[in-house]
C-alpha cells in the first residue's frame, strides 16, 4: 500500500481547517470542568449538606456510563425535545438551526466535571488541615482561606492528574463523530472521500491530535513547578517579564501624571 504524501498534506490542511472546532470542543469543557470540578470537590470535602451528597451520587452514576453512550443519549434527547422546549420559552430557533457541536460540548463538559471533581478531591485531602485552621485563626473566612491558602496549594498536586484529563479530553473530543459533529478527524477525512486515501487522512488527524496534546502537556506542566523553583523555567520567566513590564508601565504612568501635575502647577504660577 502506497502512502501518498500529497494526499496526506491535503488531509493535514483540511484537518487543520477544523482545528478551531476541536479547540472549542476541548477548551470549553476544560474550563467548565476546572471550575465545576473544583466547586463540586469543595462541596464534598466540606460536607456541604445536600449538595455534597448529590455530587457524590451524580459523579458515581456518571462515571459508570461510557462517554459515547452518554453522547448519544444527549443527542436523542436534544433532537426530540429541543423544539418543544424552545417553543415553551418562546424562542423561534428550531433544532435544525442549532450547531450540534453544543451537544458534544455539553457531554464532554459533564465528563470533565466528574473527572476533575475526583482529582481535585484527592488534591484537597493532600493539603494539611492545619493550613485551613491557621487561616481561620488569622481571621480569614472559609472562602478566603479556600481562595488564598488551600486552592493555591492543591493546584500543584492536581496538575499531573489534570494533565491526564486534558490530554484524554483532546483525544476524546473525536468521539463526537458518533453524533456527527464536524471537527479535526472529520476534516482530515474529507479528501479521502474523493481519493480513498484513508490511511493518509487518519495519520494526518493523528498528527494534529498528537501536536495538540503535546503542546497542552508542556503548558500545563509549568504549573507543576512549585513557586520557589519557577525562576528556572522559560514559561515563568516570560510571565515575570510581562508582569514586570506592566508594573513598570504603571509606574511610568504615575510619573507621567506627576510631571503633568507639576507642569500644570507651574503654568498656573506663570
Amino acid at each position: 500500500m502506497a502512502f501518498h504524501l500529497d494526499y496526506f498534506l491535503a488531509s493535514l490542511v483540511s484537518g487543520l481547517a477544523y482545528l478551531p472546532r476541536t479547540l472549542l470542543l476541548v477548551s470549553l469543557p476544560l474550563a467548565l470542568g476546572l471550575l465545576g470540578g473544583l466547586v463540586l470537590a469543595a462541596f464534598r470535602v466540606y460536607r456541604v449538606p445536600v449538595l455534597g451528597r448529590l455530587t457524590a451520587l451524580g459523579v458515581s452514576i456518571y462515571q459508570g456510563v461510557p462517554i459515547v453512550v452518554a453522547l448519544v443519549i444527549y443527542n436523542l434527547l436534544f433532537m426530540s425535545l429541543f423544539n418543544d422546549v424552545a417553543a415553551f420559552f418562546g424562542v423561534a430557533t428550531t433544532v435544525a438551526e442549532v450547531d450540534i457541536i453544543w451537544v458534544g460540548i455539553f457531554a464532554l463538559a459533564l465528563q470533565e466535571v466528574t473527572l476533575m471533581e475526583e482529582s481535585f478531591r484527592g488534591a484537597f485531602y493532600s493539603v494539611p488541615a492545619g493550613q485551613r485552621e491557621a487561616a481561620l485563626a488569622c481571621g480569614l473566612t472559609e472562602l478566603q482561606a479556600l481562595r488564598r491558602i488551600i486552592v493555591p496549594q492543591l493546584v500543584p498536586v492536581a496538575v499531573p492528574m489534570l494533565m491526564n484529563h486534558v490530554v484524554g479530553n483532546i483525544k476524546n473530543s473525536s468521539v463526537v463523530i458518533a453524533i456527527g459533529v464536524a471537527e479535526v478527524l472529520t476534516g482530515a477525512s474529507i479528501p479521502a472521500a474523493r481519493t480513498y486515501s484513508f490511511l493518509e487522512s487518519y495519520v494526518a488527524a493523528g498528527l494534529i491530535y498528537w501536536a495538540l496534546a503535546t503542546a497542552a502537556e508542556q503548558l500545563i506542566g509549568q504549573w507543576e513547578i512549585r513557586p520557589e523553583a519557577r525562576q528556572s523555567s522559560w514559561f515563568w520567566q516570560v510571565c515575570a517579564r510581562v508582569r514586570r513590564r506592566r508594573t513598570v508601565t504603571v509606574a511610568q504612568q504615575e510619573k507621567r501624571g506627576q510631571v503633568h501635575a507639576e507642569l500644570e502647577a507651574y503654568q498656573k504660577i506663570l
Partner: protein
Amino acid sequence: MLSLKHIRKSFDREEVLRDVSLQVRHGEVVSILGPSGSGKTTLLRCLDFLERADGGELTLDDLHVDLAHAKRRDVLAMRRRTAFVFQNYNLFANKTARENVMEGLVTARGVSPDEARKKAEEALAWVGLLDKAGEYPSRLSGGQQQRIGIARAVVLDPEVIFLDEPTSALDPELVGEVLNVIREVARRGIAMIIVTHEMAFAREVSHHVVFMEGGRVIEEGPPEQIFSQPREERTRTFLKRYLTDSNMYYI
C-alpha cells in the same frame, strides 16, 4: 478580661472537657499543664472555634459568646481579636515568611498591602528573622518557622494569644529560641494561654498555672504554689513524674 465558663466538649461519647472555667486578666500569662489526653489542646481549640464546644460561655471584654451556638459573625469577631500559635507551626506553605505575617492583616483586617508589609517586616525583625522574609517555610528550621508563627500572631495585635504546645515539635536545641520570643511577647503585655510541657519555662513566665486532668481543672494558682506546694495529690504525682522523666533525658 477573658473569662470562660462551664466549657463542655465530647468526641462521640468520649467526654474531653467536663465543665472547665478559667479567668485571664489583661496581660496575664496562663499556663495549662497536664498529662496528654487531659483536654488542654481541645480547650484552646474550642476557644478559637477550631472545635465546636458542646456548651460553655466565653467573655472577651465586651464580647459575649455562647460557644455551642455562636453565629458566624461572633466566631469571626472572636478570631479577629485573638491569635493562635500551633504545635506544628502551620505556616502557609504557599507564602513566604513575609506574606505569612501579612496575610491576616491584608485579607482579614483590610490593612493596605504597603502598611501590612511594613508591619510584617517590623514583626519579623522583632523575632530576629528579617533576613528570612523572602523564604518559603519549607526552607526554614522548625525554630524559625515557629518564631514566624509567633510574629504572625503578634502582628495582628490580639488581645490574647493561644499557644498550643509551641515547642513540642522542636528539636531540643531549637526550643530556647522560641521560648525567648514568647518571653518577649509576655514582656509586651499581651495576654497568653499556653499549653506546654516545658515546666521550668511555665514556672518562670506564667502569672497563673492551671493543672488539668481528665477534662477537669484539678488545681490552679500562682506558679510558686503549684510547683512548690501543690495541694492535690494528682498534681504532685504528675509534676514528680515529669520532673524526674525530663531529668533522665538530660543525663
